[in-house]
């Protein structure tokens, strides 16, 4: 019943704070790509894979007081509230909710820039569509020529942490 809300509260409880909506989008996409069972559907948009459902879920959690949204250096910053943490713990205790998060991947992503994650996420999206690694690389460069210098590092990150 609260699967989407619970999964996001679990993520935010683990990482405490995320700077930027784009970064949240790409982090959740890469967690899904790595096999985490999340209910958010992604489509390819201007900044790479984007889930309108994820943004809606975040907006709802903010409205309900489970997440806070503030602005810092023009980017939106999200973090879990006490109320959010309490709801998450209630769902775990009473409803048997649980989520096994790849914390190594999650913490690695927190350290990266949103642009870098945009490239990793775009590459992952293409691999997920059935592109082989060679075609995915050239397609990612075609889609993001301004980020071409990040591609090798992005592929290495994908191979080590996501795949």
């Amino acid at each position, binding site marked *: 019943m609260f699967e989407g809300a619970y999964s996001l509260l679990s993520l935010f409880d683990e990482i405490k704070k995320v700077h930027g909506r784009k970064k949240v989008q790409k982090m959740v996409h890469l967690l899904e790509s790595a096999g985490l069972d999340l209910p958010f559907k992604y489509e390819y948009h201007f900044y790479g894979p984007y889930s309108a459902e994820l943004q*809606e879920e975040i*907006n709802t959690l903010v409205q*309900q007081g489970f997440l806070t949204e503030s602005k810092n250096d*023009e980017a939106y910053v999200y973090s879990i509230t006490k109320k959010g943490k309490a709801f998450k713990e209630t769902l775990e205790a009473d409803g048997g909710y649980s989520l096994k998060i790849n914390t190594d991947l999650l913490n690695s992503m927190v350290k990266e820039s*949103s642009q870098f994650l945009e490239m990793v996420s775009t590459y992952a999206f293409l691999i997920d*569509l059935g592109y082989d690694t060679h075609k995915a690389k050239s397609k990612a460069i075609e889609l993001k020529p301004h980020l071409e210098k990040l591609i090798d590092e992005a592929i290495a990150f994908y191979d080590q942490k996501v795949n």
Partner: protein
Amino acid sequence: MKTIRDPVHNIIHFDKESDALLLELIDTQEFQRLRHIKQLGLSSFTYPGAEHTRFAHSIGVTHLTKRFINKICSLKDEQYKQYSQELADNRMLALTAALLHDIGHGPFSHALEKTTGVRHEKWTIEIIRGDTEINSVLKKYNVDPDEVADVIQRTHRSKALVKLLSSQLDTDRIDYLLRDSKMTGAGYGSFDLEWMINVLRIGEYNGQIEVGLDLEKGISIAEDFVMARYYMYMNVYFHKTTRSAELLVDKIFNRAYEIFQEKQEIEFPEDLIRILSEKGNLKETLHNYINLTDNTIWYFISIWSRHQDSILSDLCTRLLRRKFFKSVSIPDKSPMEFWQEVFEYSNKKGIPIKYYFLMDEAKSSSYKDPYIFHTPKTDEKEGEREASEQIILFDNNGNGTELSVISDIINGIRNKKISIDRYFMPEDYKNEIFGG
């Protein structure tokens, strides 16, 4: 000339020579299968006329895409030249993508996706790229299947092509709104298509190519279009009866699969067993997927309504006899309070929560409309914004303006907080917990 009569577009022509590829694609096994996949799933429980299929919709989108391309190519001003050329060069690719954009939809798509863990978009790509009649026809006509897949997945280099089929003003959405409105009988989903095409424009806005409308002549039709979407969403796509039926089907799949996994006795579609046992190997199970239609699933729902498992038989019987769960709208109650009440009640009565207390949110519906339901944030910096959620009006010099900036009506709709989340449960539980 091949002529098709259509309830939305009236007469649809396919030229036997220039459209030979499209006609051959229509005749493939995979495309003919769409005759057995309903466009609106379970909406006919609410609107009995809504029996139309993805087959008719896909042909409608192709026809509309042809008209859109013809219109853009007829625009003579210098600013349109590059787009006209781009669309003219890729005309057959655009029409092919339009025809095949829904080819991977399965029966009860949403519930099936949850069970198999494979989204229909991935089947679409596999049907286009894999060992299928569609793939053979594309190759016969020297159309690159990868390019068709790229247009559908929005990753094609020609953004004009992508936006034509997938944007806030795309041919897919326009056809399904008009078709769903016509077939449900819900007239408020209709709008003036002829005028919309007449004032169709294309241009660049914030560094992106956008299909838009004429600034002077297009505001009224743009407003009509957004209002039609709003009404259709509120009254058809998110109708409480339809959503109740959809949630019930989710739970039926859930329960049947649980019984199957526990190796209890249950009849299960052979093709679905193969898909589940191959765990996401799309290549190996493609033909099993193609075999699944609405008819297959309805047959099994009928069988399961007599199953010894009381939850499964109850859920199936409720669906077959239209005895759906009732909705509770409790905007003042927080999810936490609701959860605690339901938890206490179900514990006391021994009712399995996950099958009998269902939460429904706009975002969990298969129809989504972020343009209407996302409050726009005007103060965010470029990198924070997903620029595709806009409807652009272009002036004579090609300068674009977002619709909600110049339309008070649309601005009002976009900034209105629309809360339509609700909970569903059997009527007797509802009466006992909430007092009727």
